[in-house]
């Protein structure tokens, strides 16, 4: 049962990623990425990472992809705004030729490791409590740096948005 679930989620994840690079319309690409993110969240749940399962759904699927879809609809992109990509599939084949040796290398290295049972266990591994303990004991400096980074991103987004409104106001004064 768990195996079937894992196979289905993996196929959905890889299929969504393939839909992202094949479709020309960015809206279909965004929906493919959404499917892929939700499937990866399911694989997180199969790997006992319950807190990350929630974070993946809330932050990735709920916040980032919704923001991307919102901006795609907000910009109102027409067909002639899209870049024409005549040799897209040639470049995809070239990229596959570049990336396949790296995959073979990593998979050979991983296959050499001793195999362990990766099934679900009934413990508090990956729960929010133990993760909080590890986060605030071992990773406190990184946590503070990430909070500063989020503050800087907030200020940067406000500055970028402010420049646009000033230009609009200037055009309004001229006319």
């Amino acid at each position, binding site marked *: 049962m768990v195996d079937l679930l894992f196979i289905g989620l993996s196929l959905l994840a890889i299929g969504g990623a393939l839909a992202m690079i094949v479709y020309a319309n960015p809206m279909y690409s965004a929906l493919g990425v959404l499917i892929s993110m939700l499937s990866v969240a399911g694989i997180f749940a199969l790997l006992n990472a319950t807190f990350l399962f929630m974070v993946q759904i809330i932050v990735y699927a709920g916040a980032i992809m919704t923001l991307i879809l919102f901006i795609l609809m907000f910009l109102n992109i027409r067909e002639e705004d899209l870049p024409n990509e005549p040799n897209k599939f040639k470049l995809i084949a070239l990229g596959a030729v570049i990336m396949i040796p790296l995959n073979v290398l990593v998979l050979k290295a991983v296959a050499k490791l001793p195999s362990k049972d990766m099934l679900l266990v009934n413990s508090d591994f990956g729960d929010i409590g*133990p993760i909080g303990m590890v986060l605030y004991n071992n990773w406190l400096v990184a946590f503070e740096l990430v909070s500063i980074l989020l503050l800087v991103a907030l200020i940067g987004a406000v500055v970028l948005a402010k420049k646009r409104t000033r230009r609009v106001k200037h055009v309004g004064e001229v006319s």
Partner: protein
Amino acid sequence: MISLTSLAFVSMALFSIGAIGVISRRNIFVIYMSLEMMLNGINLFLVTFARYHFNMDPQVITIMVIAIAAAEAAIFLSVIILLFRSKKSLDTDVFTTLTQGEKS
């Protein structure tokens, strides 16, 4: 079936598809989503090895990666809006104002 090698295959497939998307597409939205897909593949790899070694440090690193992706999303999408307003295009070949060539 749910073994270390199959999980590593799925995560490497996601990472590779993201990298192929970055080098083959010209739509700037698709390039951004490919970057997100590469981060997703690396997250899956980290969580796989967290389960393999029964250690919770990789899951904390994954939380950091997700926070950085959220910060990146805010900046990247506002820059995309500014670029689209000034050039009316999503083609990465149009955004060449800072290069040194004779193209204006």
